[in-house]
């Protein structure tokens, strides 16, 4: 039993190697054999840790109410965000906790299969999970079967409909869902998709109860969460923090620059947060008025010496390249936005026109894709224009900042791949 107020929770007992099943049961205690109940999840108030923060119990209830005796639970450990390392850290510490949670969810919704999805570009993670699943199979007396799937690594491949599309039809492309909530299906079988960290929390709630879970965090967003901090920090880390702590405290623990210029919250589809708001609580209801969110638990620290526009431009360029190119507004609009940002950052005479065009295009693209990929980029660009407004003014007037002439960047954007080399299946 972990003491209620102590941290880490999901990273408890980490030894640097993934815990074996025996070590895992010693560290966390055995899973209760009682009939699993949705009410337990409901009263815990757990929300999804993959970015959307949707209540896990409500999603499980929706899938539980569907007909079908062949349902799936999909554990999403794809980690499409280049700045996120939390699923990797979690699975290289406690893979069995994730599988425990997935198994519990499977029993709640009546699923027979658990499909663990991890990107094939990360062989170490694949190896860890393969071992863990194999270990379970040997000790198994269970009605739930585990299978490991390895889709290609793409930004949008971790989006739930793209992931289910891959499991169904071997294509990591998002699907069109006109009505929400939408029940995703593999063949005819309903699918419950949950992030790996969410599953780990479920594994703890199943053991120790909802009240234990609520002892950390705020009443509206209880529990702890994993945060990947990178950028201007001593070294990029993954921390487990209670929700609702001040952002400044997280930065201190990560050894970040004490006087940053801005923070990118929530990942590449997230929003910039001005450093004036460093004392805001790290929870969605406190961050929402500032146009920001916890997202997938990513903080990128931008120091005073960096240029927010350049970082945004690099991220937008990469995100445009990662578009699945299914929807016109995303396939053509995101490169156009990236071009506008590039024109804004180098001092050409057309910078003022580029700024106006950029604002128009952001409005034109929003909400017109099948998935939220273009909306994320629009949110990022809009927040950049707002947070760095004085800076943008300088760039438009042709007074490019010193940082834009240096080659040092703070967001570790992967190198662009050529369009014909992108692997989708």
């Amino acid at each position: 039993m972990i003491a209620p107020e102590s941290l880490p929770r999901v990273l408890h007992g980490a030894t640097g190697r993934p815990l074996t099943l025996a070590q895992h049961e010693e560290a966390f205690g055995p899973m209760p054999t009682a009939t699993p109940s949705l009410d337990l999840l409901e009263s815990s108030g757990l929300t999804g840790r993959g970015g959307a923060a949707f209540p896990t119990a409500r999603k499980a209830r929706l899938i539980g109410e569907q007909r079908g005796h062949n349902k799936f639970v999909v554990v999403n450990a794809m980690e499409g965000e280049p700045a996120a390392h939390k699923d990797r850290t979690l699975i290289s510490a406690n893979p069995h906790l994730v599988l425990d949670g997935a198994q519990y969810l499977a029993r709640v919704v009546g699923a027979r299969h658990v499909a663990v999805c991890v990107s094939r570009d990360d062989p170490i993670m694949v190896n860890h999970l393969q071992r863990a699943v194999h270990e379970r199979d040997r000790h198994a007396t269970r009605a739930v079967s585990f299978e490991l799937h390895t889709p290609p690594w793409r930004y949008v491949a971790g989006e739930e409909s793209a992931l289910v599309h891959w499991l169904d039809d071997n294509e990591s492309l998002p699907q069109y869902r006109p009505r929400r909530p939408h029940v995703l299906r593999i063949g005819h079988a309903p699918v419950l998709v949950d992030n790996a960290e969410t599953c780990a929390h479920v594994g703890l709630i199943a053991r120790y109860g909802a009240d234990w879970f609520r002892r950390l965090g705020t009443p509206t967003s209880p529990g702890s969460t994993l945060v990947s901090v990178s950028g201007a920090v001593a070294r990029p880390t993954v921390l487990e923090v209670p929700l609702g702590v001040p952002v400044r405290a997280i930065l201190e623990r990560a050894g970040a620059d004490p006087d940053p210029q801005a923070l990118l919250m929530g990942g590449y589809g997230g929003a910039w947060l001005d450093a004036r708001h460093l004392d805001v609580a790290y929870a969605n209801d406190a961050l929402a008025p500032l146009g920001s969110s916890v997202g997938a638990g990513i903080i990128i620290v931008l120091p005073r010496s960096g240029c927010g526009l350049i970082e945004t431009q690099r991220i937008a360029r990469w995100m445009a390249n990662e578009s699945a190119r299914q929807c016109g507004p995303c396939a053509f609009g995101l490169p156009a936005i990236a071009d506008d940002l590039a024109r804004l950052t180098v001092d050409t005479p057309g910078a003022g026109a580029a700024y106006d065009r950029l604002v128009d295009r952001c409005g034109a693209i929003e909400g017109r894709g099948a998935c939220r990929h273009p909306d994320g980029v629009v949110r990022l660009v809009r927040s950049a224009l707002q947070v760095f407004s004085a800076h943008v003014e300088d760039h438009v007037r042709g007074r490019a900042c010193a940082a834009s002439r240096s080659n040092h960047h703070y967001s570790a954007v992967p190198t662009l791949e050529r369009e014909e080399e992108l692997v989708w299946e």
Partner: protein
Amino acid sequence: MGVRRRAGGFVLLVNPILCDGFGHCAELAPDLVHVDEWGYPVIVTEPVPLANLAALESARYAVRGCPRQALRIERVSDAH
């Protein structure tokens, strides 16, 4: 007799994955659809009352005229 009550409204919806930007919808239903700079449709999002027969008819033309069959009319009943 024979009087149909046209309460509620409709919206024209596009499946952005199917849509290839032929632009027929913007010609067939110019009041509901205009195209963006890349030729993809931008559709009026607020429901149009079903009593607006001209708009409904043009929306139907747009649905039938779409080469990719990406358009759909959906009734919304909360307009009354």
